């Protein structure tokens, strides 16, 4: 099992402690706090020994398609280790251009079952980053039921929604005030808070609570998960130590319980690993 990381500060990429890094490409990725230019990606690919994955997870518009083609060709030539995609235009271009570039199915809230994983695998998609709204049991079933390489996000402030609209700008316009590009909002009944980040592509929503999946890493390791993913956003002060310790934990076959105890400090929120969502609130009729 490998450790894959998405960072939130360019100065510190933890390249020596991790197996792979996710680099969101400027203008072509959303739901990330940091993005990289193509030149930066090339440099990191050249200089690092870890795997380099590039995130191209926007909903693309017609006018993006030619650039997207060129980027995919360039990434293919660079022998990037994989591209995270949301929009099926990416898969179509890969097919048309006969690119060798490995793809990761990353339709944020949709990667929830093994049959669709197998469908994408049959179309040449090598990896899937499973949705964050499914249980650990469902992840286990997917791992058992597909030969695709599975990635599971275990520690992060999860991204939970994305709008093409400039929601923070609009809010401050109504207030007749100058606002920034970030805002924390709280829903009163549930007491759930979200961090909103806006750029020219739209507004990303992140849950303002850390998902602490440290306790499930051992199971994921036993079930031969290909990658676990950690995202730094909101954990900058201790993320370096966390990834170092996690790498060490994996190298010791995930048997060192002191690691799990140490990271209880991340909190007890385990997202949907142990909680099923409901969707029918009344009977028909």
């Amino acid at each position, binding site marked *: 099992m490998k450790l894959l990381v998405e960072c939130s500060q360019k100065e510190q990429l933890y390249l020596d402690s991790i197996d792979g890094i996710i680099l969101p490409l400027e203008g072509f990725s959303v739901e990330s706090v940091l993005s990289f230019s193509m030149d930066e990606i090339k440099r990191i690919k050249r200089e690092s020994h870890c795997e380099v994955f590039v995130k191209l997870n926007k*909903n*693309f*518009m*017609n*006018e*993006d*398609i030619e650039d*997207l083609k060129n980027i995919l060709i360039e990434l293919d030539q660079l022998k990037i280790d994989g591209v995270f995609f*949301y*929009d*099926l*235009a990416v898969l*179509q271009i890969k097919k048309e251009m006969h690119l060798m570039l490995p793809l990761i199915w990353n339709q*944020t*809230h*949709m990667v*929830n*079952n*093994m*049959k*669709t994983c*197998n*469908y994408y695998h049959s179309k040449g998609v090598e990896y899937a980053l499973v*949705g964050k*709204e499914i249980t650990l049991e*469902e992840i286990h*079933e*997917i791992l058992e*039921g597909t030969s695709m390489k599975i990635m599971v996000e275990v520690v992060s402030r999860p991204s*939970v*929604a*994305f*709008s*093409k*609209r400039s*929601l923070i*700008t*609009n*809010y401050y316009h*109504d*207030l007749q*005030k100058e606002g920034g590009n970030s*805002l*924390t*909002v*709280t*829903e*009163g*009944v*549930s007491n*759930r808070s*979200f961090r909103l980040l806006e750029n020219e592509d739209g507004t990303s929503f992140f*849950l303002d609570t850390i998902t602490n999946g440290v306790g499930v890493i051992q199971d994921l390791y036993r079930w031969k998960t290909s990658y676990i993913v950690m995202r730094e956003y909101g954990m900058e002060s201790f993320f370096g130590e966390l990834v170092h310790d996690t790498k060490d934990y994996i190298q010791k076959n995930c048997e060192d319980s002191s690691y799990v105890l140490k990271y209880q400090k991340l909190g007890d929120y385990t997202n949907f690993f142990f909680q099923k*969502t*409901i*969707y*029918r*609130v009344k009977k*028909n*009729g």
Partner: protein
Amino acid sequence: MDKVELLSPAGDLERLKVTLLYGADAVYIGGEKYSLRANANNFSLAEIREGCLFAHKLGKRVHLTLNIVFHNEDMEEVEDYIHEVVDCGIDAFIVSDPFIISYIKSHFPQVEVHLSTQNSTSNYKAVEYFQEEGVDRVVLARELSKKQIQEIVEKSKIDIEVFIHGAMCTCFSGRCALSNYVTNRDANRGGCAQVCRFQFQTTEEKDFTMALKDMNMAEYIEDLIEIGVKSFKVEGRMRSLYYLATVIGTYRAIIDSHYDHTLTEEKMKVFQERLDRVANRETSTHYFMKKADYTDQYYSGRGELSNQDYLGQVISYHDDLLKFYERNYFEVGDLIEVFTPAGDHISFVVSELYDEKMNPEMVARHPDQIYYLKQHFDVSIPEYSMLRILKRKED
């Protein structure tokens, strides 16, 4: 020339019948499983069969939504279910999951598959992918401009469907799990709690809201037809009969007037007014002619109004006696209108009103009770005609 399809929502069998009578060319419905409105009164297999028979007799079509984002457990019985509903006679599936698409296409090549807007398809290259997977139609994302829709239509060999009317999601469809995180209700399996219409506290003096105005594309229907869009979808499987009759009847009239070259500015004004009166929110055309902005949102709560225009639903009309179920208060002396599935709109002042036992009444004040109006009409006023207020006598 083939006319553009007018596609209506239908939350139950009665809505299916009414909306087809009012001019929809096709309806989309949800079965008891796998639809994104898990809490609507969805159709049983027997109702699907009856709905298909009714539609097919009129030469119209029924599309079934199968557009949840599937978990493993949802996959267990879906294949059997697909066989069952095909047997009921449905004409098309609306699907978001590509495995389900491939399953349907390999087992039932005669049944159409439409890619749900849940996929938020927003470019011609993604359409091309699904075209090669055998999809017959793509329902585009609601975040596209006229130019973008036009380019997709021009570059695609399959039908393109767009939403023209109804409520909007703030986020890309399928790309939102706010409901899961706030209410534990699964947004992508039909449990969406519409969290984007909630209010959120910030450190500012006023709450943060992101609720959107509804979509109303009436003024651009001709543009959309000229672009080559094949189907116009109205949102709202949980909307009332009156709402559906008004909205579908009005779009039917706009589309027909376009094709017979009688759509004048004056007529459009009347049509727009009808749509505005039945709306419970303000409307916008969102991304169609500009980048969506400040003007497309609400900044104080949900922004919904209750609508008291709807007075009654006609049961029958014989010998100048109009029998109807009352829905909202009205009285003798009010100026009201009866409108029919055939598109007739007749206004009159209420002069004689009776209760179910034919006792004279001055007011109708008991919703769901049967009343009679004495009034002569020169046209047929069939069942499912609707009554609405135009002007109250005290106004």
